[in-house]
């Protein structure tokens, strides 16, 4: 009986652990300069987070706080100085700056990355048709990336991350340059992915989007502050699982940015 009583929590823990698609534990990163008389910049200091299947996680923080660095480390594009990242399943990464081949066409980009993901020709064609339809850029299939507008380039950037239907999506400001219709289409797509059990982490600056996230992490002084998005939407100040000390964060509106930005209450890097 005792064993029976103890089983459910164990199963529950195992299930919870198996639900995690990426877990970062106590990540530290400092950018050292190779040049003399220049300073090193400490960006992350014990950042800890996790993303579960079917969870949409927002990562927020002011400019230069290290969000993109964190995202690159989560994706595996950058090594952390300390800490560990564990991923389960396939990963789709949409970097802030589209890392695409400028002189390949949209079609060729799909083919090349489809090859990288191990997709066959039919799968690539299906993914291309689906994404160019949803994001509305079918007419640019034969256009070279360098001749695309910023918004269409970003659509392709996002599509390359999505085309193999990964278990984890890491999106670094994915809707930069999107028009309103595409912005809405993006969130509709994200909802579909959530329903399919895809874990999604999104770097965002837009405070009005907070309701769309299940969890928001704020990056401040190299630490992450986890906030469950609840009914009252009050920012909760509590340390991430690495038990780092944190300070309470406060929302504010940046007039220059036209509103919608959020940053920490104290100055930080």
């Amino acid at each position, binding site marked *: 009986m005792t064993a029976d009583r103890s089983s459910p929590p164990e199963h529950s823990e195992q299930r919870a652990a198996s639900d995690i698609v990426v877990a970062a534990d106590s990540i530290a990163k400092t950018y050292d300069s190779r040049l003399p008389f220049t300073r090193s910049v400490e960006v992350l200091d014990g950042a800890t987070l996790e993303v579960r299947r079917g969870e949409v996680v927002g990562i927020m923080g002011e400019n230069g706080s290290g969000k993109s660095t964190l995202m690159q480390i989560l994706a595996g594009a950058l090594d952390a100085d300390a800490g560990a990242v564990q991923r389960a399943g396939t990963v789709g990464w949409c970097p802030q700056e589209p890392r695409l081949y400028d002189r390949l066409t949209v079609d060729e980009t799909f*083919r090349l*990355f489809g*090859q*990288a993901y191990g997709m066959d020709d039919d799968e690539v064609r299906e993914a291309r048709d689906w994404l160019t339809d949803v994001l509305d850029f079918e007419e640019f299939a034969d256009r*070279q990336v360098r001749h695309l507008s910023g918004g269409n380039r970003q659509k392709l950037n996002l599509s390359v991350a999505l085309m193999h239907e990964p278990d984890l999506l890491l999106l670094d400001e994915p809707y930069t340059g999107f028009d309103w219709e595409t912005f809405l289409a993006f969130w509709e797509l994200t909802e579909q992915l959530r329903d399919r059990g895809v874990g999604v982490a999104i770097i965002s600056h837009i405070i009005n989007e907070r309701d769309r996230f299940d969890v928001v992490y704020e990056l401040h002084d190299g630490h992450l502050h986890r906030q469950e998005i609840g009914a009252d939407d009050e920012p909760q100040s509590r340390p991430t699982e690495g038990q780092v000390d944190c300070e309470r964060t406060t929302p504010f509106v940046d007039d220059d940015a036209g509103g919608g930005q959020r940053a920490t209450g104290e100055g930080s890097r």
Partner: protein
Amino acid sequence: MNGRVRTLAAMGAREFARTPVLLALLVVLPVYVIGVFVLLVDDTAVPLTIDGSVVNAEMSAFAAAFMTPVTVAILAGIVGLFLMQSSQAADDRLRLAGYRAGELVTARFGLLVVGTLLVTAASLAVALTAVTPELLGWFVLATVLTGLTYGILGVVVGVVLDRLPGVYVMLFAPMVDVLMFQNPLATDPPTWTSALPGHYATELLFAATFTTSVDGTDAVAAGGYVLLLLVLGTGLLYRTTAVE
């Protein structure tokens, strides 16, 4: 070569073909550097020091032979540099998406070889109108080896330097190495100049152009230099495309 490498190499070739400025440079620069030099020099004989012996050659033939490795080194170096600079960030992403480092390195070096052969062909087409090498096969081989040497150096420089300083380095390095220190008009070059990348390939080239025999060790040493740089470049490429 597997299908993934073929696809990547083919896409790289398309990018190359869609860079009209670079393609124009490959055609115009040999005509300009080799052709104009040949036209400008007097038609007199000059004494050249080749493998310790003095050989007299027509100035125009010397100009054509001499400017060929200089041109090929500059152009191949720039091809290597641009190959690296234009694809590095996207290669990282492609690597994360599933391409293996070996596949990327193979495709990139394959493209570099094609670029070097193009540069060599364009330069030879101009040079051979003004000079008839005694040993054409060795002359072509020496030119290709010079191109490969500087092409791989261009890749290495592309990994460690940004585009602008990289272009400066890849313009000045062949000038200093081949144009100044491997010049057969110089009778007593410093010993250390034999350690420069272009030394053995240009020794081979001048012997093949103006004498009836070549020293095989020059070919082996030039090939060895290419292999050494290939190992260095491959190591650097593996490192830059390393992902978890």
